[in-house]
């Protein structure tokens, strides 16, 4: 039985997993790239080993090196987190071959679900409904895909076979733009997952993205932990998740039906460990299997807060061969949880990523607030990895309480050094459609704007004018002061004190 775990990841999820290991009394091993020497996961781990250069392909994607380190330092298990090597069946297999426990599903399940086309075929056989798309072989050539596209119908989606998280995904409105978009999607998929294969899928309009978390042990027990609402996305990147879904709401029958279908999908590939079945749900509450994420999800905390379970600890227990501690009837959802993904990107400038050193930060704290992060004041947000700075998660007795709590937490959260999407979330929390639970996967892109706050939000231009004028006034005064001294070289204050000494 393993007692030392290597975490093959970085950022907030590496810290999250480290904490779970530590709280189970396990030794922890971090791996890091040259850009991450000062990252929290390196600082918090018991051991830390350098993988290589900042680029993922030189570090966090180097499965061979990671396995070598695990063997050398005596780690008995590897937790892959999400992204990087998390859904690579070959890596899971290599771990197994090296005698290391892979904290995740068996390689065969990753392979079956990882190839989205195979996944769809498999779950269809198990009686799970799927969205129309290019089933069968996953590695179709561009000419084949272009031929199949009109049969599926437009609009459709190009999706990365190995992918997830919106990477390598493109929306196609008509055939003519498809070759260029195929190119772009394959390039992004290659860069993100080392696999440029893509497939096509019908775009269900007005759809909601709702997913079911499942846990499965090695002894054939599978439970689901209810749903997560993930419809708030931009460019197919999730921005905000909640549990329960306001769309499922009090409809316990729908929740259980989706849960049962999810369990069936997991069983179809003899799934073990934590996983997520993503569904598209249309206005009439028909739901379609979208894909299975055979790993821990970014948004797992919302499920933790409403079920009271620690999913990462459950993952480790399962990997140690334990039986699930819960039957389906023991799983109860209590209250409401919302997660905002805080990204280093500027919502006022086309959501462009923002890099730089975090010079100052005030975290929201207090009752019902959880922050999962890998950054701290002094940490450099580099362009090498994704822009997720932290996850701000709140719990409330009701959805209304959770929203009010999220509002105050967002207002409290201060990050200086990079621009963040906190104002985006603040606007979202004030949006009447969000409050009413009236949104689909296109809401953010098509019906939400940062420029026109809805009525009811206090617009305060005169206060902003005072702020701006006082800041400008201060700078003018300071500049005038310095120019009067006739000196601008070297630091002003240093120079002034030196100048004053000379006058004595």
């Amino acid at each position: 039985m393993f007692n030392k775990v290597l975490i093959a990841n970085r950022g907030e999820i590496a810290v999250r997993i480290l904490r779970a290991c530590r709280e189970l009394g396990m030794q922890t091993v971090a791996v890091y790239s040259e850009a991450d020497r000062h990252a929290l996961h390196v600082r918090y781990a018991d051991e830390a080993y350098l993988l290589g250069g900042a680029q993922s392909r030189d570090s966090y994607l180097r499965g061979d090196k990671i396995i070598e380190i695990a063997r050398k330092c005596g780690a008995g298990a590897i937790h892959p987190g999400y992204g990087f090597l998390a859904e690579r069946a070959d890596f899971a297999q290599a771990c197994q071959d090296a005698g290391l426990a892979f904290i995740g599903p068996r390689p065969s399940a990753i392979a079956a679900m990882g190839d989205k086309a195979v996944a769809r075929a498999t779950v269809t056989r198990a009686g799970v409904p799927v969205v129309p798309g290019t089933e069968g072989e996953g590695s179709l050539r561009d000419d084949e895909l272009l031929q199949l596209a009109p049969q599926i119908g437009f609009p459709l989606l190009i999706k990365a076979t190995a992918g997830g998280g919106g990477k390598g995904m493109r929306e196609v409105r008509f055939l003519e733009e498809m070759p260029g978009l195929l190119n772009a999607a394959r390039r992004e998929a290659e860069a993100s997952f080392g696999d440029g294969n893509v497939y096509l899928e019908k775009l269900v309009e007005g759809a909601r993205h709702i997913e079911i978390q499942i846990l499965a042990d090695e002894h054939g027990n599978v439970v689901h932990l209810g749903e997560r609402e993930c419809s708030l996305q931009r460019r197919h990147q999730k921005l905000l998740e909640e549990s329960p879904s306001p769309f499922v709401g009090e409809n316990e029958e729908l929740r259980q039906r989706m849960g049962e279908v999810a369990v069936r999908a997991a069983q179809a590939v003899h799934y073990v460990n934590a996983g997520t079945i993503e569904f598209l749900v249309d206005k009439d509450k028909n739901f379609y299997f979208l894909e299975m994420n055979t790993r821990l999800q970014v948004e797992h905390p919302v499920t933790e807060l409403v079920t009271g379970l620690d999913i990462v600890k459950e993952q480790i227990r399962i990997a140690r061969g334990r039986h699930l501690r819960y039957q389906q009837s023991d799983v109860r959802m209590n209250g409401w949880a919302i997660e905002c993904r805080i990204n280093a990107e500027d919502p006022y400038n086309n959501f462009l990523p923002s890099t730089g050193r975090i010079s100052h930060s005030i975290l929201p704290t207090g009752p019902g607030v959880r922050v999962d992060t890998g950054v701290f004041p002094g940490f450099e947000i580099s362009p090498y990895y994704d822009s997720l700075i932290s996850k701000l998660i709140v719990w409330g007795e009701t959805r209304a309480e959770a929203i009010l709590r999220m509002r105050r937490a967002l207002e409290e959260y201060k990050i200086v050094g990079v621009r963040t999407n906190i104002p985006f979330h603040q606007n979202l929390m004030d949006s009447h459609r969000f409050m009413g639970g009236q949104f689909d996967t296109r809401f953010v892109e098509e019906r939400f704007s940062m420029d026109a706050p809805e009525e009811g939000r206090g617009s305060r231009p005169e206060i902003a004018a005072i702020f701006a004028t006082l800041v400008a006034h201060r700078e003018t005064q300071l500049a005038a002061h310095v120019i009067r001294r006739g000196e601008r070289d070297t630091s002003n204050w240093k120079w002034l004190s030196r100048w004053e000494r000379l006058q004595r």
Partner: protein
Amino acid sequence: MKYVTTIGEREFLVEIVDDNTVIVDGVTFLVDFDSAGSQPVYSMLVDGRSYEAYVYPAEDSLQVLLHGTLYTANVEDEREKRLRASAGSRVAERGEYYLKAPMPGLVVTVPVKEGQAVERGDVLLILESMKMQNELKSPRAGKVGRVRVKPGDSVEQRQTLLSVV
């Protein structure tokens, strides 16, 4: 000291009387203004109401991020304002616009050519950074000037990529 501060369509006449007194359009406010531990975060009490904002310097303006709303403010002292007024209308959007890399990254595509006419909002360049493909758009209509980079180039932050004339 008197300033004219413009936000959107609105002009505010702001007089800074002393450290704790500001007159805005003839109304006197008691203010207590200070940096809140770390610039650019400022705390201000105005007649007892407590506000906190980020104030970022931008080109020719200040961006004030207050309670999740961004205001772009132009602050001019009264004398400047009068000078400018006598010199004629507001400065036109003229001159060359230089598209600079907002972050380090890899140039993926340059979908425009030198001399090509572009509209406001047209994509000028796609830059890959933080595992995302980021579209850099034209802030105004014009003609593409010199293009200084090509697909595959690594660029530094603030590096000039191309211009719009």
